[in-house]
């Protein structure tokens, strides 16, 4: 079901296998990871379900949002024909050209336009074609959208605004089709930042984001657009923002991640359990801003150990915020330093992607180091 686009890894896998074998007594670790986790099964459990992948689930969410909100609009580059990732397929046919439309190629314009629309109370769902291209819109998002309500004393706001953007590694994206820019936005009071990890999660979180009365940046892991498939409720449901999900319960170590990385972490956790009987508690943060500090702290107080992993570069990555906050709150409970398993502090390279990303090996190694500290 879930398959990474894998280059022939013979040399790499031998190196990796040796590395892992040296540190753990184990059977060889495979490179590809299965689509490791599913969305929260308790969500909308009474509803009829249908097989959907990530972009279909996102499409479903937007369709429902548009049905119930007659002035809601979706716009961005190429959304009219269905979007470069097919997320908006069929929406223009269903809701008309006034509500689903292409904009000129200009992210600062998309953002400014979206803000103006939302300031009038109209729901605006603005797509940035890749998160890597969101930076021209940074001024509008950070200086305007995030501050709109605060600076006007509540006279005005852009609560009905949602930005959507595909983010993250895709196997061949290199510098400008692989970035994870969440940390820049998490540093901005006034925004919410949400990252789903499965189709069920994506649909519920997107509906919640669109309806949330604050500007939300919704980052969609492009890796999972096609490859993540599950049975998703076809009706209307929301997943609460600001609340993390404990995906797997465990007792020895807490692992925190979000988006596509969650599946990598699940793989590492499974290997750790299989090979050394380490019991990992895996947490999907879902919302990064505001993040569910309570759930993570509660978990760390139980396990005494924490690893956070993300593709974004390590320095000032969002894991740094979680680290700092958790050591503040759980210092005396910690058995080992908090570890961050992240992308290197370089731009995202093409041919070296396999080495760059914080894969299951690196996480497995970190788990071992932490547990044996």
């Amino acid at each position: 079901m879930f398959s990474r686009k894998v280059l022939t890894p013979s040399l790499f896998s031998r190196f990796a296998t040796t590395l892992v074998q040296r540190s753990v007594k184990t059977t060889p670790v495979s490179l590809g990871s299965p689509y490791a986790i599913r969305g929260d099964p308790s969500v909308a459990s009474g509803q009829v379900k249908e097989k959907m992948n990530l972009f279909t689930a996102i499409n479903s969410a937007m369709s429902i949002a548009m049905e119930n909100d007659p002035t809601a609009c979706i716009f961005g580059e190429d959304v009219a024909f269905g979007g470069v990732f097919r997320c908006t397929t069929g929406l223009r046919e269903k809701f008309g050209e006034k509500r689903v439309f292409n904009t000129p190629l200009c992210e600062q314009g998309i953002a400014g336009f979206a803000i103006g629309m939302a300031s009038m109370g109209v729901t605006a769902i603005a797509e940035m074609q890749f998160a890597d291209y969101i930076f021209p819109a940074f001024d509008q998002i950070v200086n305007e959208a995030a501050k709109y309500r605060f600076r006007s004393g509540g006279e005005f706001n852009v609560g009905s605004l949602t930005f959507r953007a595909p983010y993250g590694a895709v196997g061949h994206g290199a510098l400008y089709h692989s970035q994870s820019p969440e940390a820049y936005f998490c540093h901005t009071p006034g925004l919410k930042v949400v990252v789903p990890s499965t189709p069920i999660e994506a649909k519920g979180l997107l509906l919640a984001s669109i309806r949330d009365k604050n500007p939300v940046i919704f980052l969609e892991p492009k890796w999972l657009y096609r490859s993540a498939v599950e049975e998703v409720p076809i009706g209307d449901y929301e997943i609460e923002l600001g609340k993390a999900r404990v995906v797997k319960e465990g007792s020895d170590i807490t692992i925190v991640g979000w988006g596509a990385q969650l599946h990598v972490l699940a793989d590492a956790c499974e290997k750790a359990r299989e090979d050394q009987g380490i019991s990992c508690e895996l947490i999907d943060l879902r919302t990064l801003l505001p993040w569910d500090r309570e759930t993570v702290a509660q978990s760390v107080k139980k396990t005494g150990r924490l690893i956070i992993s993300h593709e974004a570069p390590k320095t000032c990555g969002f894991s740094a915020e979680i680290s700092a906050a958790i050591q503040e709150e759980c210092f005396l409970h910690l058995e080992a330093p908090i570890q961050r398993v992240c992308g290197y502090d370089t731009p995202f390279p093409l041919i070296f992607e396999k080495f760059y990303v914080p894969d299951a090996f690196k996480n497995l190694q970190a788990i071992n180091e932490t547990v044996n500290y």
Partner: protein
Amino acid sequence: LGIMMLSRLSTRSLRGPLFSTFRGYAEESSTALFGRKLTYVHQLESLKPSALDTIPAYRIMDNAGNIIEGANEPKTNEEECVKMYKHMVTLSVMDRILYDIQRQGRISFYMTCVGEEATHTGSAIALKDQDTIFAQYREQGVLLWRGFSVEQMMHQCFSNAKDYGKGRQMPVHYGSKKHNFQTISSPLATQIPQAAGAAYAQKMLGMDDACTVVYFGEGAASEGDFHAALNFGATLECPVIFFCRNNGFAISTPSREQFRGDGIASRGIGYGIETLRVDGNDVFAVRETTERAREICVNEQRPVLVESMSYRVGHHSTSDDSSRYRPKEEIEGWLDTNNPISRLRGSDGN
């Protein structure tokens, strides 16, 4: 005479002296130009900026306030003229007081709009209450005309508990939902694409007799957001008036260092937007221009660009001393010979 529409002007200048030497022989409906006929020529000729006449500015009164012979008589009465005059004088007195208050250390900052009273008053009077206004920071006359009180201005500048903005922003960052005037923010030109979006929202909300107006200076029009906004306004057919106050300065930067083209008006046509240029110190002309712009916006649901030509008599702000970059004589020249308030007085309500 009527208002000089740029469309008529360009027809005269563009097809006349520029390419008259040789007519193309093959025309085609061009995909690249979405249905415009593209002519091919085999004489290589570039289009020089100097070939286009400077876009003229519309005025009704001369500098003394006399209605120019042949110009449309302004449709007004004594009561209205007195109201406009009082408004402009109140504005200038309020500005003077708030400036001095800052100098006394009682507020932190202020920006006057001396010299631009006619631009504010003339444009504001042409709008309706349901027209949403976005502004830059030098449009207090527009907000006051809407009904925002002088007292409320004080609250905002003093950042006290009665400020609608709850004391969170610097002085002159006013805003008021009930007056349909969006709160000012310091970053320049960010409001311009927002106005295009707000105008689109007005369409979605079925507001048939409404438009959005966004004010900005000629300096802000150098920002990327300006270009983004005009392009969006045109392609998405937004009923928005892009209202540029060209007052000659962006802090210390004069317009000759801000752009090389024919002001801001010349950019409109490039984006496919109907454009009007007006004498910003002639309150009647500004009113008529804004009325016409509004009519186009509302009836034809498309954007309009207005460039109001004026002069910033005051300093950029209380943190600025403009004598450091311009001669006193230049300021006095404008005050004496082209003063919006005295021109209205001079018109004697004719």
